[in-house]
């Protein structure tokens, strides 16, 4: 196929050619960035929690009257839940990964240090590791004699009574690597206050924060040996088999209600629901972006159909002459296909530059990473395909023009 005659024809239709190129360029730029944004959202939604997600249930209850002995109340509730058929393990916890509501602490590496080194979340509660299914990479799990009552620990913070304070902690691999890069974290100490230091006794593979909004800090997690009493902010976590979840949840709620009919259930959900809720905005945004991409590609394709049809109609006589002079139907078809390919290529080249520019703008204003180069060829192929599909109809109509048109006046 000779490209020169096509170029010379296009030069006579500069304005319409440029409009088509502009449309393809803008579409290419926006589609590249939108696909990239979708990728970012999907990646975020895939954030690991570090727990056995499909086996966990969360229940939170609030008592009408504050119980006189919250610790006794907690022990009763745990005992009641353990009796429920299908329950494998029960834990009490102050928070859950991706649960939003969180308790956090400022961590220092040196007791004299005034500014914090970083802010990490603190999980506390009993039987957490077994129930959540976190994986220990090195060191040991928390032992029953590590635990102290949270009320006593809070009091001891003031008095400095070290017997009532916790002395050890678990941290995640990510946090260890951030605090002591490349070193063995076991036996090292993190300071919550100048007087309260906790020795790292175990390292967890992964455990996400409840407030994992920022991917870089999502795994800054500590687990402390603190016992809580029954409280409206305390959750019961139940581990069970995935297929038993619905039944176990219903039975557990019934058992808790039976123990005290007056209490209010404030949260009852599976961990799948927790994840679903935490990332719902990301899912909605990704869905919207898919919608925009589809709409954009359709509008652009229809624009190409419209302009190509116009060109075919305008050049009927020229097509007729070429056919009369011996051009085959395939020649005519290829002519329009090549023309579209040329215009799309120029548009895509411009679009890449524009896509890069938009990405730079987004990086500046929305803290997005740089657009990976892989999106460019993908964007190019999509637009080439759209162009070819859109031009096929008008090009076939052009190929169907009979040679006799050449001899008629228009």
């Amino acid at each position: 196929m000779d490209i020169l005659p096509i170029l010379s024809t296009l030069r006579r239709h500069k304005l319409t050619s440029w409009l088509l190129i502009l449309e393809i360029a803008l579409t290419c730029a926006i589609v590249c960035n939108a696909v990239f944004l979708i990728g970012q959202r999907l990646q975020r939604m895939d954030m690991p929690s570090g727990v056995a997600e499909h086996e966990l249930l969360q229940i939170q209850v609030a008592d009408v009257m504050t119980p006189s002995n919250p610790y006794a109340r907690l022990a009763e509730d745990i005992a009641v839940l353990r009796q429920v058929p299908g329950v494998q393990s029960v834990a009490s916890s102050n928070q859950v990964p991706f649960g939003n509501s969180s308790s956090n602490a400022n961590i220092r590496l040196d007791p004299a240090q005034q500014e914090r080194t970083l802010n990490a979340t603190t999980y506390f509660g009993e039987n957490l590791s077994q129930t959540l299914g976190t994986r220990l990479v090195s060191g040991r799990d928390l032992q029953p004699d590590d635990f102290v009552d949270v009320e006593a620990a809070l009091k001891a913070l003031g008095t400095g009574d070290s017997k009532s304070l916790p002395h050890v902690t678990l941290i995640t691999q990510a946090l260890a690597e951030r605090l002591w890069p490349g070193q063995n974290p076991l036996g090292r100490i993190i300071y919550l206050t100048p007087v309260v230091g906790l020795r790292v006794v175990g390292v967890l593979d992964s455990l996400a924060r409840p407030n994992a909004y920022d991917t870089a800090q999502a795994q800054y997690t500590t687990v402390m040996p603190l016992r809580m009493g029954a409280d409206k902010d305390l959750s019961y976590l139940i581990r069970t088999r995935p297929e038993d979840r619905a039944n176990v949840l219903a039975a557990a709620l019934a058992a808790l209600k039976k123990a005290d009919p007056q209490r209010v259930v404030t949260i009852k959900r599976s961990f799948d629901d927790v994840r679903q809720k935490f990332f719902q905005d990301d899912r909605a945004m990704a869905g919207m972006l898919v919608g925009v991409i589809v709409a954009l590609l359709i509008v652009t394709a229809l624009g190409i159909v419209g302009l190509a049809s116009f060109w075919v109609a305008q050049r009927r006589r020229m097509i007729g002459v070429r056919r009369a002079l011996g051009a085959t139907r395939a020649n005519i078809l290829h002519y329009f296909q090549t023309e579209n390919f040329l215009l799309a290529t120029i548009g895509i080249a411009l679009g890449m530059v524009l896509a890069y520019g938009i990405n730079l703008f987004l990086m500046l204003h929305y803290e997005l990473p740089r657009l990976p180069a892989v999106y460019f060829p993908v964007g190019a192929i999509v637009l080439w395909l759209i162009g070819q599909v859109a031009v096929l109809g008008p090009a076939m109509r052009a190929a169907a023009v009979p040679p006799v048109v050449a001899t008629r006046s228009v």
Partner: protein
Amino acid sequence: MFAYYLELALRSLKRNRVLTALMVMALALGIGATITTLTVLRLLSGDPLPQKSAQLFYPQIDPNAKEGYIEGQTKPDQLMAYPDAMNLLQAHRGTHQAAMALTQAKVMPKQVNARPFFSDAVMTTADFFAMFDAPFQYGGGWTAADDDGRAQLVVIAGFLNDKLFAGANSVGRVIRINDHDLRIVGVLKPWAPQPRFYAQDLGGRSYGDGDAVFLPLQTARAMEMGPQDTECYAAVPDIRHLETAPCEWLGVWVELDSVAAVADYKTFLDGYVKQQVALGRFQRTETSLLDLMGWLRQEQVVPDDVRLQAGLAFGFLLICVVNTVGLLLAKCLRRSAEIGVRRALGATRREIFTQFMVEAGIVGLAGGVLGLLFAELGLLGIRHQPAEYASLAHLDTWMFMFTFVVALVASLVAGILPAWRACVLAPAPQLKAA
């Protein structure tokens, strides 16, 4: 003449129905997307108290340690510790001033068999209602004396009054909150400023329903109600005594009625901080006194996603306009012969230009009507989204009219190039060709 152009335009649009439908459809999609996202953006970046926002100010100070402080660059903290909030309140330098924190109230209905439930609550001080123009259905707020005396009273929202007392005047009746009996002194009319500016950074949502319960700060604290968000700036000896702990958990607002009053207050605030530095309590002297809208801007209360969506929609509209330019141009070039005839019969260039612009305008109006439909569909979709502002997404009169402005501007901009090409066409060659 205009009627004639209208007839010509309609006839021309009818002649090529598919192309016309294509243009209208593409433009409508672009307009629909733009209006949907702009409606949300306008809603979220709106002024929560238009009549009052210029007089409301948010003082900020910085009790953090010297370490990490860069003079002139470090921003003061968003929240305030109890002693500082009380010192500012007791100075009475503004027309009104109030400190506030969000909490959860466990409400126990009096009806037999009714279950207790948790409601959003604000613990605040007496000036809250007058300063924020919160409208009362029955009764009124409480006094500064009630604050100091830890009076067992409460103001409830209209929707809670409807739920508990079927909307009757409940002033003087008793409501059980967190195991304490409180006397109702006021019932608010529906009041839910959007954004919920006073809750910003206090650990609550930025948009959505109003709060249900308003209690005096000291009363609530005596009932051991805790704030939703607490930020500590030094080692905490006892977290349960928030009033003395080095922790920030209160937002403070002041009403200042004149430019002079604002300047005075800023001087007072700077003086207060210097005094605290002299006393050895503070190390940093940075202060800030933003007005309501400035505070919301600094807090970037409008989610990034919403701004991104609006940008995306504008890009989409741009592509739709380029698309319309191309199609209009194609149409107009095909009618070269017709234009030649009209020119030969005496039509001026201006008349040809006007004729084509009228045609573009009709496409725009049709696109606007269809775009309005798409925008309503888009907003319906937004209302079904999980976002906290979802239920607020409705088209108002302004956006309704704005739709047609956008549609007309978009189509006329799209029409200029084709209309210009049509009017500069030399008539003679076209006539010959025909």
